């Protein structure tokens, strides 16, 4: 490995932290300086993420690559170990893309943008850390780090909403989001400690623990069964698993744009990633036992989320529920335990991350201009927001699984996997995609088309910053949709190794 390859993963963690630290010492009124430091750092992160992704040797390389390890707490066997496999590499890329777009969109923040960016970068560091950690302690460390800033980000910069028969103050959204996810993460905590004890290898390193999984007398079926269930629920909550999903719509309704982008874009993916990382890799028998339940829940997610979204008329509620629905495909893909399905699940995480971020970019733009997200009030925006409409429609089409966009390839692979294992559930999943079309088109029809109200006569199209952010997101959406091979070939070795571990 050359110098850059040795250090790229740790830099992905250090750089956002460094950016946060630098921002601490920039005077508060220097808003422009803060903005450019942040955007610059985020773009540097994007470049490094792309580099890390490209440096991954998908053809015969080791399972975990770009490895780097520092001793940290030897008595407990904790080391600051990093490395990415075929599943983590696309996630790193995703994080780079969404963070860059998010940081650019966050430039719209006027009030205390210093604190905002500090928290945002801590969150980004947490996300990167989770994806690249090979040590379960640090995995959990960064996992929590990614969640906590969310509270303040939503609580301070968010917006409260009043609906016809209920209110959703921003504190509520923020508190619910953080409490639910942290509460669930404690299950993960127990699982990590349990696995550590059961492996009795005196190490939290995933590779070392994996070597113990099949050792005689270790990781009994009951142990794996219990642990997997906890893993599933623990990570499931962050991934919006029914019935623990309600933080998602309410959280997004309250959150500021760039937070929603990062949250739905990458943070929810930590959930799916965690189920693969810990559930599938370290608890293979547990996975097999609970696969059907995961499958069913995934299907419920798909249908339930889509049906709930049908009745919403707040843009963010729709997208919040659609996230619930789309994450269902991730669960389904994982539960197929087939190479195609798991690949699809990984790709779906990637695709959904980007399309939701795109959604939120536009929705945020609309909200800033009109101060409403109510589709009953908004109408005919297309004539005033040409690009905004274009981007939203593209995101919508990706969301309803239009071929040629990233979402379709992912869903298709999930469906193929599903039809090989549980065809009925797979068919329900396909049905979910049809319902998605209904609510997405209703949304587009109401918001962008039709006659325009006089009060929207003075709104403007996306600013160049928003436009650039959206473009960063749109390009991969098309690229993956039309030519997914670069991503698929990286995912492949990761998936194969996992399935070999499952004995499937």
């Amino acid at each position, binding site marked *: 490995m050359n110098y850059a390859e040795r250090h790229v993963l740790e830099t992905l963690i250090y750089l956002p932290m460094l950016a946060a630290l630098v921002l601490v010492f920039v005077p508060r009124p220097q808003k422009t300086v803060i903005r450019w430091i942040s955007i610059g750092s985020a773009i540097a992160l994007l470049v490094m993420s792309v580099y890390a992704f490209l440096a991954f040797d998908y053809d015969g390389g080791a399972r975990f690559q770009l490895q780097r390890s520092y001793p940290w707490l030897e008595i407990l066997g904790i080391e600051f170990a990093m490395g990415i496999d075929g599943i983590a590499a696309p996630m790193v890329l995703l994080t780079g893309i969404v963070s860059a777009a998010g940081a650019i969109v966050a430039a719209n923040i006027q009030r205390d943008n210093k604190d905002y960016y500090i928290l945002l970068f801590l969150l980004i560091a947490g996300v990167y850390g989770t994806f690249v950690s090979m040590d379960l302690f640090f995995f*959990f460390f960064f996992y929590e780090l990614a969640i906590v800033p969310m509270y303040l980000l939503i609580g301070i910069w968010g917006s409260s909403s009043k609906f016809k028969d209920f209110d959703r103050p921003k504190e509520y959204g923020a508190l619910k989001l953080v409490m639910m996810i942290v509460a669930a993460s404690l299950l993960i905590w127990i699982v990590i400690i349990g696995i550590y004890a059961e492996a009795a290898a005196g190490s939290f390193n995933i590779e070392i623990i994996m070597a113990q999984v099949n050792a005689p007398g270790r990781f009994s079926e009951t142990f794996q069964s219990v642990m997997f269930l906890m893993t599933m629920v623990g990570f499931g909550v962050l991934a919006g698993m029914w019935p623990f999903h309600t933080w998602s719509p309410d959280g997004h309704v309250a959150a500021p744009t760039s937070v929603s982008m990062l949250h739905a874009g990458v943070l929810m993916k930590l959930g799916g990633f965690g189920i693969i990382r810990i559930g599938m890799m370290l608890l293979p028998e547990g996975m097999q036992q609970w696969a059907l339940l995961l499958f069913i829940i995934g299907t419920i997610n798909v249908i339930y989320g889509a049906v709930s979204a049908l009745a919403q008329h707040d843009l963010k509620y729709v997208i919040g529920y659609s996230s619930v629905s789309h994450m269902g495909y991730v669960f389904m893909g994982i539960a197929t335990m087939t190479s195609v399905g798991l690949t699809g699940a990984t790709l779906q995480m990637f695709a959904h991350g980007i399309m939701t971020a795109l959604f939120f970019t536009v929705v945020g733009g609309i909200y800033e201009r009109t101060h409403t997200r109510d589709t009953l009030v908004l109408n005919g925006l297309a004539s005033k927001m040409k690009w905004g409409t274009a981007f939203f429609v593209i995101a919508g089409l990706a969301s309803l699984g239009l071929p040629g966009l990233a979402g379709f390839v992912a869903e298709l692979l999930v469906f193929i996997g599903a039809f090989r294992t549980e065809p009925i559930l797979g068919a329900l999943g396909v049905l979910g995609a049809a319902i998605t079309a209904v609510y997405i088109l209703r949304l587009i029809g109401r918001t962008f088309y039709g006659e325009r109200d006089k009060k929207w006569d003075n709104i403007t199209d996306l600013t160049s910053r928003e436009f650039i952010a959206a473009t960063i997101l749109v390009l991969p959406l098309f690229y993956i949709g039309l030519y997914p091979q670069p991503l698929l070939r990286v995912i492949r070795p990761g998936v194969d190794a996992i399935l070999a571990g499952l004995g499937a």
Partner: protein
Amino acid sequence: MNADFTLLIPEFILAGAGFLVLLVDLLLPREQEHRRNAFTSATAVLGLAVTGVVAATTQMNTGESFHDGLLFIDRYSLLFKVLFVGIGIAVVVMSVDYVAEKMSHPGEYYALIIFAVLGATLMAESGELLTAFISIELLSFSLYVLVGLSRGDARTAEASTKYILLGAISTAIMLYGISQLFGVMGTTRFTEMGGLLAAAGDWDMTLISGFVMVLAGLGFKLSMAPFHMWAPDVYEGAPTPITALIATLSKAAAIALLLRFLAEVGSGAVHEWRMPLAVLAAATMVIGSLSALPQTNIKRLLAYSSIAQIGFVLVGIVPNTVIGANAVLLHVIGYAFTNLAAFTVVIIIELKLGKETIADFAGLSKRAPVLAMIMTGALFSLAGLPIFAGFLTKFYLFTSAVDKSLEWLVVVAVATSVISLYYYIRIVREMYITETEDESKLPVPALLGLLAWVLFAGTIAVGIYPAPFVDATNAAVTVLTPWVAL
């Protein structure tokens, strides 16, 4: 028999410093309150610092027992000595402005803090029941007085009365326990008791009652359930720096003694006390964290939170392993930084606003952003979130318990940990989210501000670079008899 009094030089310096503070107070004219406060506090800090430096430089490799195990001067006690001195310095520093505003006898105040530190130090060193008892009393008496010292607040009288009366009961209970243990074993030295207990077979009622009553006495200091009920009242009523002292020094000293006692005496009969202690740990965590939920007074809330924290510590003590002990010590260190940081902020708020309810923190992020950040860090650390000390130490504690088939205890601990996040985050909400009309900047006293920064840095340091701390704790616990071999 080793009666080398040079081993006790740090303690002598400490005692001397205490008297020196009184002397300085006496020598300065009565009306120059400001100067008296400044000089006495400076003397106190100097004395504590010298003690710490002397101890750290001369006793690094000492592993002696004084008078056949009356006191142990070893790495274990050294760790606590340095910690206690550090706590002492921090509390003195955070008291300076407080004393100037609210108290009339700075000399006595600072001297008593030093004596409390001395008592705590001796607790960490003692290897014999009577010595331990005397040390506890030295600490306790200092605290009884300190709790009641405040000038203005009528609640202090109530707090000190409850504290001393309940303390007296716990003293009596513990003494009765000591007498029972002495009656059964004929000795009060930990090492000898340990051997006898390991060979004792089944425990009879005398032994049980003795053991339980000694535990109860220590449990009172720890505020372990069901001996915790004094804590909220005393925390609330005491002058805030003293609350900080109780929360950190007194707790840490009791943990030091308990850990040594259980390791040296109890190791041979772990099966007898593990489950009962685990049950108590669970009860402590549950009661502490649930009762904290509806609190409105910040000090009272911190009291319940510290009860819950003691439950977490017990999770590390229960397994009676070197990992567990390590975890406990690391947690105590991290907790000291964290709690002192939180109390520093509380003191600043109390001094500037004269109030101490959670609602008074509203808008702090606007009025004093740095304080808000530090307080948030401290609260997140208490809640066990990264990058702060609490995350690592809790993780460490809970990991240590799972080995000894105490999974259920880990589950309880983890569950209460979630609940605790709620009440910590409520304060964060007040500081950052609740809108206030008064957005004027709060002036932060330089000294207190600096202290808060230092403690905050410590909180983070333990959280992200624990290696030096872990080296120290590991060196400390491996001198305890059952783990020497390891």
